[in-house]
């Protein structure tokens, strides 16, 4: 198998186009199943009442926000090492979705915090790290938006992404350290006591749905980016005859 064959834009484009509907359908089915488990199968939590059901969004979103950053760094590293343009396109296509999930994790964290802690925002280690992760996403996107030359934008963003991914564990550790010194342990969203088996399943299925959604959206975005970049090439010109 020749990897470079799949790395070429003219094979990637139709290939991604075929995959997107499948991933989108999977995302829908899994989300429906996850929500069904989350709302109708999982029992009421004896401590947090019905409010805990936010975790079916919050935890998968928080996982995704971190995974996507790491996946982006993976594509960035591949792009820098092997000089494959399509890898940078993938890294770039993932960033907005990652930022979206980070925002969702923060938003749902705040909505969970209000009834549980009595405040919309608490400087909890997880929420704080998530906030800094949002800054990291915004930084990469702002840098790429500020550079006109796509080649330079790709590489600069990839470097920043890699520096960020080395730094994320340090940041997480430092924030955790800071938090234990200043506040002591607090109730955490994921350490919900006596997590029922069904809750765990609901979360996992929702996380899978989020994965499928991310893949579908990232491929779609990568397709548009590819189209824009390869506009001079013959295959794009031939494609333009058809439907968008």
């Amino acid at each position, binding site marked *: 198998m020749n990897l470079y064959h799949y790395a070429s834009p003219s094979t990637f484009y139709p290939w991604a186009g075929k995959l997107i509907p499948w991933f989108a359908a999977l995302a829908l089915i899994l989300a429906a199943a996850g929500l069904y488990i989350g709302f109708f199968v999982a029992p009421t939590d004896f401590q947090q009442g019905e409010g805990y059901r936010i975790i079916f969004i919050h935890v998968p979103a928080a996982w995704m926000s971190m995974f996507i950053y790491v996946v982006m760094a993976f594509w960035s590293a591949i792009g*820098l090492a092997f000089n494959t343009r399509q890898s940078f396109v993938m890294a770039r296509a993932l960033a907005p979705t990652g930022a979206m999930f980070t925002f969702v994790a923060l938003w749902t964290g705040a909505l969970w915090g209000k009834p549980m802690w009595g405040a919309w925002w608490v400087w909890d280690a997880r929420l704080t790290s998530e906030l*800094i992760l949002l*800054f*990291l996403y*915004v*930084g990469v996107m*702002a*840098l790429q938006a*500020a*550079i006109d030359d796509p*080649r*330079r934008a790709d*590489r*600069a963003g990839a*470097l*920043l992404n*890699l*520096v*960020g991914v*080395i*730094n994320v564990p*340090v*940041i997480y*550790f*430092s*924030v955790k*350290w*800071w938090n234990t*010194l200043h506040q002591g342990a607090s109730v955490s969203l994921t350490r919900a006591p006596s997590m029922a088996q069904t809750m765990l399943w609901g979360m996992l299925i929702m996380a899978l749905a989020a994965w499928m959604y991310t893949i579908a959206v990232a491929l779609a975005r990568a397709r548009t980016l590819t189209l824009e970049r390869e506009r001079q090439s013959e295959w794009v010109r031939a494609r333009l005859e058809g439907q968008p």
Partner: protein
Amino acid sequence: MLRFLFTVVRRDVLLAARRRGDWLTAQFFFVIVVSMFPLGIGPEPGMLRTIGPGVVWVAALLASLLSLDRLFADDYRDGSLEQAMLSPCPMALLTLGKAIAHWVINGIPLLLIAPLLGIQFNLPAAALWILVLSLAIGTPILSLLGSIGAALTLGLRGGGALVTLLIMPLYVPALIFGAGAVEGVLSGSGSEAHLSLLGAFLVLSLLLAPWVSAMALKVSVE
């Protein structure tokens, strides 16, 4: 190799000495930012003592960022950056030298001013000493990580604000360990752990930052 590094540092320090106005601006920026906080918060001594370490550290971050966007930009504009990049010595030494020079020019003065500002915030002598020590370990980190941001944003519109956006999140560990060390003294829980972690972070950035900013420089100049 060492001679090359030394030349880079000496050259930047010489240039800063010829432009003392710019240099003084950055130092006064630090002093003024720190002095604004009591005016905004109120002169209650206990309160000032609690926020003092954090305020001084945040102001140090801002002051280092203020001068960062010009780290490579001036040399880029007049072409001397290209010449330095064509030198037979490895480019990571160039970026390391630039970061060291930035620290000598902007970091060391902060160490000297910080105790005076600490007194304004009612910090006891032991805490002042740790404040200076934490800044001594921490400000090189700011220069090193900052050089990555400066290299990435070289020649872009709105480079200054962009550097802040890119680099501030990376500064978080330095801020937490640095300010935490001083607070450790104030609360009596000790500062060794914080300082060792800060030192480890310095070693990590010393090992990685020059390479990354050399690569970033290559990407930006190309």
